[in-house]
């Protein structure tokens, strides 16, 4: 027994030394998720990105993740834990991690940080996000066509620009094809709580919604839509298995290529702080396959919109668009600039209800 321990110890030591001697210590990449990796939505897709890194680099990388980390002060502890344990690159994948990420980044200048969906950067903090609103334009177009009660239910998480953008772009696209359309919006104040998301879906359906859109992370609303025989869209992930009949299409976040590129940059020593905001064209925002339930001509027009956005011929926010209070936001033919989009804190004209702040 003692012999075995010694042998193992020696072997471990030998392995350790060779790794150091060759300079092939693996690059350590850490991830912080807001939900469980099994949420089948937002955090799940980030974890797919992590797995893509492992597949691309093999034993040259070592990845770690911390899941279900609450936004706010507790996140700082989790991020610091990753930074202090020798990670070279850390992805913090929710809006609410913005300030904790910057705080930890200041204390660990040699560690590179990547914060998803935020707008604050530093020398060692990059930001990245998908232009999900482009996808929502396509989904809104489909929803506007598919609703028979002219009522679309929208389950929203928190009133941050990202979510407000999604509501506005979906509404504008739906209104375009269906002038009578009405959006009923419910704020659930959580990214992940399947029971509450299901309750919200039920409340919306009982009040006449026959198409549900969501900006929360679990497929609960999709399950309810399937049960009640109405339509819904996959959010962040395809979610088809949760609603084979209900799912019309989806927005899929494809983080893999970006994560691989950034890991490569750290390995090469070429990593620089930057801001990435990619949409349909580079593939960070993917549109899921269209369901057969959608009439062929609507499928074609939806595809045409996706193609036009990808080609840069069309913008989700093109004037004339007024703000909810009736004041002019975009004049005829004018498109929204990124600055306004990133800070969007107003509903467009036609949406009822007051935007919480």
């Amino acid at each position, binding site marked *: 027994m003692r012999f075995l321990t010694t042998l193992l110890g020696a072997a471990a030591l030998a392995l350790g030394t060779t790794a150091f001697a060759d300079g092939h210590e693996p690059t350590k990449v850490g991830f912080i998720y807001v939900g469980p990796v*099994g949420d089948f939505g937002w955090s799940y897709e980030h974890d797919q990105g992590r797995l893509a890194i492992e597949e691309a680099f093999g034993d040259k990388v070592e990845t770690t993740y911390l899941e279900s980390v609450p936004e706010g002060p507790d996140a700082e502890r989790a991020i610091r834990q990753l930074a202090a344990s020798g990670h070279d690159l850390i992805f913090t994948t929710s809006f609410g991690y913005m300030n904790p990420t910057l705080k930890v980044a200041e204390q660990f200048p040699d560690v590179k940080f990547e914060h998803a969906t935020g707008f604050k950067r530093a020398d060692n903090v990059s930001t990245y996000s998908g232009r999900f609103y482009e996808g929502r334009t396509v989904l809104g177009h489909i929803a506007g066509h598919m609703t028979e009660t002219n009522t679309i239910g929208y389950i929203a998480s928190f*009133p941050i620009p990202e979510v407000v953008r999604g509501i506005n772009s979906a509404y504008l696209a739906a209104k375009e094809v269906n002038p009578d359309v009405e959006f009923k919006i419910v*704020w659930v104040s959580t990214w992940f709580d*399947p029971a*509450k998301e299901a309750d919200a879906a039920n409340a919306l359906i*009982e*009040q006449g*919604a026959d198409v549900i859109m969501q900006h929360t992370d679990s497929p*609960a609303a999709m399950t309810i839509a399937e049960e009640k025989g109405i339509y819904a869209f996959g959010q962040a992930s395809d979610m088809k298995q949760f609603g084979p009949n209900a799912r019309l299409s989806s927005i899929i976040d494809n983080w893999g290529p970006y994560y691989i590129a950034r890991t490569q940059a750290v390995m090469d020593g070429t990593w620089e702080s930057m801001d990435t905001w990619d949409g349909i064209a580079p593939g960070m925002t993917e549109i899921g396959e269209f369901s057969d339930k959608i009439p062929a001509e609507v499928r074609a027009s939806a595809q045409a919109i996706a193609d036009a956005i990808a080609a840069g011929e069309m913008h989700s926010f093109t004037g004339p668009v007024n703000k909810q209070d009736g004041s002019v936001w975009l004049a005829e033919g004018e498109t929204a600039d990124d600055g306004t989009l990133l800070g969007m804190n107003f509903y467009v004209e036609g949406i009822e209800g007051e935007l919480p702040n």
Partner: protein
Amino acid sequence: MKTAALTQPILIVTALVTLALFALFSGLDPVLLAVSIIIAAQPLLLAALGEMVVEKSGVLNLGVEGMMIIGAICGFAAAVETGSPALGFLAGATGGAALALIFGLLTQYLLSNQVATGLALTLFGLGLAALIGQSYAGIKPPPFPKLDLPGLSDIPVIGPLFFSHDAMVYIALALVIGVWLFLGRSRPGLILRAVGENHDAAHSLGYNVILIRLAAIAFGGALAGLGGAYLSLVRVPQWNEGMTAGAGWIALAIVVFGAWRPWRVMLGAYLFGGVTILQLNLQAANLTPLWLLAFGFFLFAIWRTLTSRRPLELLGLWLATVLTAAIAAKYPISIQSQYLSMTPYLVTIIVLVVMSADRLAANLNAPASLGRVFHKTG
């Protein structure tokens, strides 16, 4: 004294009638609303009722969240594998009880700290459930049939309200009655309470404190498991990692605010479920949650009218009611979503505190040995 006994029923009936009228006036369907509320309340009711019995025996098990999630996945997996939701619920209860017994062994035989062990149980349960659940994502569980009594279930309003629920709603109600009778009206219940009040005295009388507590712990785990299974089989119905999302902690709070009384625990669960559903519906209907506040003032005013003789206080309360309602009617805007999400917690706490306030002495209903370690001596 006569009026005091009638106060609570009058309050509850008034609350229900006002709610129904309010729903009708704002274009919501009160029957659908009630059914949603009943479904939302069940997981909390089951878990809180079980925890109440555990605490009555003098044990504080903070692992409700962990037992619920284990119940959710065990129930889901069994229902999917066998095709029978009933077996699913049975498996959920068994899973919850099994996990609870780990806690029981650690705290009763190895005398570990109950608070720390309970917290660890939650972490362990969440992790274990995620592991078991790996292959159950994206699967549809078999539907749980709803009661369908020919004739009775078809009566408008009454049918959907009373005769068209799934079996668990009736079982939960039976459990509340059962626990109430057991704790308050039976000899074994008295022994269980004695163990919770003073375990040394109960021990010296010859009762097996450890065994009684283990039984209570297992019962509590089984009920938490049922609550979890209700979540994954009926309320959502799907398996999702971490899907309890804090329901276990709310159940724990309901036990305290329900002052360890079965009917108040039930009231607490319905209140929390009710306000959660109401605030979501108010949002969808674009109505301000100020209505909830006006509703709260209204109930408070009625309660004081029935019990107090101070005209100034009554005047103030009725004025507050009318004023909030007037503001809500004049400014039908929504408030910040954070405050909306807060309302279920706030309302539940306020109502239960208010209801307990008039009997402050009797309110000290917490078991005296709660959370204390029992050393078996002699």
